[in-house]
């Protein structure tokens, strides 16, 4: 029998045990079926209030959480707060106190500062789910990536995954790495040396600057979005050169395994990380990632919500 879930928050995959990761994946598998029903709703979170607190712009993740919450019958609220001094802890605590006064049950937070969700989780009795904090983690993205891989490959252990792109600034890469290595995958990060954090081998990954090298062996390739701001910071000579060396096109794909999975957290810079041919090709599971995101987020919402009242019981 699996271990019970006891966390009221989901802040990072780094904090989770292998068993906890497996429980989320198993729960997500059960929730995936709900979205195939004629009535895509279950009453599990009826009467609960879920707030999207996004300090950084996002449509994809925010919409995904909103759909997931609504399919659980929760009430959703979107708060777009423009605070001028988000880097100062004080503003965040003020925000927390205001939310507490609204008696919300779950807060989904995206913030440009790494660690911000931890501050909220300590200040709130409500559950806090990290939807991306700085370059630290994006746990639900990591989970849906792992879920997608498991659906196709049947397992994670021993699966060879290449993560390609701006590793240094990517919270998606970090969550992927934590989750995948805990479950026994073999992860290689690929990119120009300027975009690879030093000593990343300590996370249990291999490093290469040659895409072709990683492609030959990989079962899964996760392409990360390259941000234009990085070129302005002179981290690589030009977008064109980046695309030539680290972008994936049909020619390069021929050197990979025929059953390789091509993934991307989105949004895609067509023609840079991926050509349209590859993004829309038979190896691409990019749209499945989006569908699986709903199931994974439903699972996370359900689990953290369930753990809340347990902790309250123990305290009283």
């Amino acid at each position: 029998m699996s271990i019970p879930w006891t966390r009221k928050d989901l802040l990072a995959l780094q904090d989770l045990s292998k068993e906890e990761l497996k429980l989320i994946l198993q729960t997500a598998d059960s929730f995936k079926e709900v979205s195939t029903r004629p009535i895509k709703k279950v009453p599990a979170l009826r009467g609960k209030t879920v707030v999207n607190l996004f300090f950084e712009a996002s449509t994809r993740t925010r919409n995904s959480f909103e759909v997931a919450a609504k399919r659980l019958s929760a009430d959703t609220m979107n708060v777009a707060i423009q605070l001028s001094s988000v880097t100062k802890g004080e503003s965040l605590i003020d925000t927390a106190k205001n939310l507490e006064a609204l008696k919300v049950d779950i807060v989904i937070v995206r913030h440009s500062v790494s660690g911000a969700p931890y501050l909220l989780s300590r200040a709130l009795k409500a559950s806090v789910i990290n939807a991306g904090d700085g370059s630290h983690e994006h746990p639900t993205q990591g989970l849906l990536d792992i879920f997608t891989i498991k659906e196709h490959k049947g397992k994670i252990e021993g699966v060879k995954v290449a993560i390609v792109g701006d590793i240094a600034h990517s919270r998606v890469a970090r969550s992927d790495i934590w989750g995948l290595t805990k479950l026994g995958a073999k992860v290689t990060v690929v990119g120009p040396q300027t975009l690879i954090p030093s000593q990343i081998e300590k996370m249990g990954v291999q490093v290469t600057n040659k895409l072709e090298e990683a492609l030959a062996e990989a079962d899964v390739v996760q392409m990360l979005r390259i941000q234009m701001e990085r070129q302005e910071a002179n981290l690589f000579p030009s977008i064109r050169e980046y695309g030539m060396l680290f972008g994936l096109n049909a020619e390069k794909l021929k050197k990979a395994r025929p059953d390789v999975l091509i993934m991307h957290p989105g949004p895609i810079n067509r023609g840079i990380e991926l050509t349209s041919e590859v993004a829309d090709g038979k190896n691409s599971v990019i749209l499945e990632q989006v569908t699986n995101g709903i199931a994974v987020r439903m699972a996370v919402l359900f689990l953290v919500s369930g753990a809340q009242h347990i902790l309250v019981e123990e305290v009283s």
Partner: protein
Amino acid sequence: MNAKKTVILDAKEMERAIVRMTHEILEKNKDISQLVIVGIKTRGEFIAKRIARTIYELEKAEVKIGSLDITLHRDDLDKRKIVPVVQKTEIPFEIGDKNLVLVDDVLFSGRSVRAALDELIDFGRPARIQLAVLIDRGHRELPIRADFVGKNIPTALEEEVLVRMKEVDPEDEVLVVKK
């Protein structure tokens, strides 16, 4: 740990009860083509499969079987001591206009059946839903009753009725445990 266990049904008696229930189901549902069976996980699903297998042996007809995980429709999610594990509901067929037989191992308060009915309605509109249970132990808290019963066992509230099935337990049997 001084629980007193009484065996109410042994393996043979359990088999006979399931076979008899299957005959009753067939009596009440003459048109097998319109019959579908849905078991409430976990042991209701196993009983449903045994019923379907018996129907095949008797009539050489294959009846569609589905399984229902009712965790998300429970009315006590906020009161549970641990976060329950959600298993997969699998109803890979249309239930609209069908005669659906819902199967569970033990009928007690009736709340599991209520949850199952709420979940089923989201899948379609059956012509009728009938309830088959291996054991009816009384103490209903909702107005729910079974159409087909393996055995009626009057019990005290403090007692526990445990159905054991070969699929997941060492052997087939039904126990009443007095704490």
